């Protein structure tokens, strides 16, 4: 038996050029005009992107910015869908809109396969992950997730005001994904740091980004090496051993996929649980109806996912082209806002309202096309259990201080502080 020596080297040597080389100047500060200077990294966007997007859809449905080295923001469902489906002209080589474009040679794999991969590689890399994330497979974790939600509430019971984002929502996906990857559950606080750095630090200078990414890769390498020495039945061991095209995966593929599962697995669901509780806290009629009719929850969850879709993706334009009335340049960003698509009145009746018994709901919260969120069944399970347990234990709650609610900035949006008054 040969020794698996793929993970002896510092991965940062290989990935360094993907995170430095900021091709574009870092531009921050108030947006002058959302149609020509948009930024998803500013506090106005985090506070309420829907107003901005609704106004743009009317006035300038494919907005532009010079920030991040140039990018476009389509707000119509039709345009968002067309870009999601058009993998020939829009690359997933980078999916976080920042000031760094990873080198062209990184395609079709990308840094965090398969979300960062283009066809035909994408299909094969994705196929490796799908069996672990089917509805049937994730159902096996339902019981443990429910017990964990109850345990969180046991700790919180008796407090008049609970920060539901910090003390409830965030812990649920952290525990679930840590269990799936085989990471120590007590490492949660580090995961939070990784998530915030990856998604909210897009305008940080390279001297800050590099050590942050180094820290994430150091952590992943420690976990990988431990799994090489002590293999077990989890996704980390699976990724270390699995073969693609007759070979084990490159060390950057293993670590990249693990960082994807860790980061995408946590803040998205954390955001969806938090946004749902925020809506129910400020909408007593919906909260009371769900308490009285628990069977409506799966329908309501789809509507909450539509209205508060947490995830926006990005693409890079492959080559200069005229597209739906605008002149796109190679390497321009596309900020692919599924939340904006989900509120397009051309696609949804009463698009700006939350209709918790909406029966026809063709929303795009988990994306469209080949990059459909691989964790969507896991996310739906976690969201359903988290809300069921919360509503069962705390049927009566409200916003303790609406002004104290804070939202994450960037491509994943959800409450990060959510003080709820119980009873």
């Amino acid at each position: 038996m040969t020794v698996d020596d793929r993970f002896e080297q510092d991965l940062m040597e290989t990935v360094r050029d993907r995170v430095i080389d900021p091709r574009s100047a870092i531009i921050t500060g108030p947006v002058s005009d959302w149609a020509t200077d948009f930024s998803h990294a500013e506090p106005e966007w985090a506070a309420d992107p829907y107003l901005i997007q609704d106004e743009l859809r009317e006035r300038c449905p494919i907005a532009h910015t010079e920030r991040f080295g140039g990018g476009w923001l389509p707000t119509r469902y039709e345009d968002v869908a067309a870009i999601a489906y058009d993998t020939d002209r829009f690359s997933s080589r980078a999916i976080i809109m920042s000031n760094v474009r990873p080198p062209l040679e990184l395609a079709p794999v990308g840094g965090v396969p398969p979300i960062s991969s283009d066809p035909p590689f994408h299909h094969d890399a994705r196929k490796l992950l799908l069996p672990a994330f089917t509805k049937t497979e994730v159902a096996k974790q339902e019981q443990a997730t429910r017990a964990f939600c109850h345990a969180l509430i046991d700790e919180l019971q008796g407090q008049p005001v609970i920060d539901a984002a910090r003390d409830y929502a965030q812990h649920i996906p952290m525990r679930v994904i840590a269990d799936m990857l085989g990471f120590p559950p007590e490492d949660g606080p580090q995961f939070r740091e990784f998530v915030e750095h990856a998604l909210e630090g897009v305008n940080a200078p390279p001297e800050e980004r590099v050590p942050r990414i180094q820290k994430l890769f150091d952590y992943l390498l420690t976990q990988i090496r431990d799994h090489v020495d002590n293999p077990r039945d989890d996704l980390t061991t699976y990724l270390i051993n699995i073969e693609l095209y007759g070979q084990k995966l490159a060390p950057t593929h293993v670590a990249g996929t693990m960082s994807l599962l860790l980061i995408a697995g946590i803040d998205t669901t954390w955001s969806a649980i938090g946004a749902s509780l925020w809506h129910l806290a400020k909408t007593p009629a919906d909260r009371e109806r769900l308490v009285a009719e628990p069977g409506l929850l799966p329908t309501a969850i789809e509507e909450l996912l539509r209205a508060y879709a947490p995830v926006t993706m990005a693409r890079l334009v492959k080559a200069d082209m005229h597209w739906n009335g605008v002149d796109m340049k190679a390497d321009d960003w596309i900020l692919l806002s599924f939340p904006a698509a989900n509120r397009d009145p051309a696609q949804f009746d009463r698009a700006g309202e939350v209709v918790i018994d909406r029966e026809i709901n063709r929303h795009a919260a988990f994306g469209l096309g080949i990059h459909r969120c691989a964790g969507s069944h896991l996310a739906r399970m976690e969201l359903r259990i988290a809300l069921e347990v919360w509503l069962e234990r705390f049927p009566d709650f409200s916003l303790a201080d609406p002004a104290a609610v804070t939202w994450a900035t960037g491509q994943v949006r959800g409450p990060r502080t959510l003080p709820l008054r119980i009873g």
Partner: protein
Amino acid sequence: MKVKINAERCQGHGRCYDLAPGLFGDDEEGYGQVLGDGVVPPGEEQTARLILANCPERAIEIL
């Protein structure tokens, strides 16, 4: 009435097997599959239409 999934379009969102577990199931990668011959039992026509209207990829066909 008969239901069919266009496998070229299906991306495994699973809305069909969430909403109509009697008509659809998932395969080992999470893609939707029609159970049996796809013939919609009498009285289930409305469910079939609901599935069609909820598939994000428009992959469901009613024959």
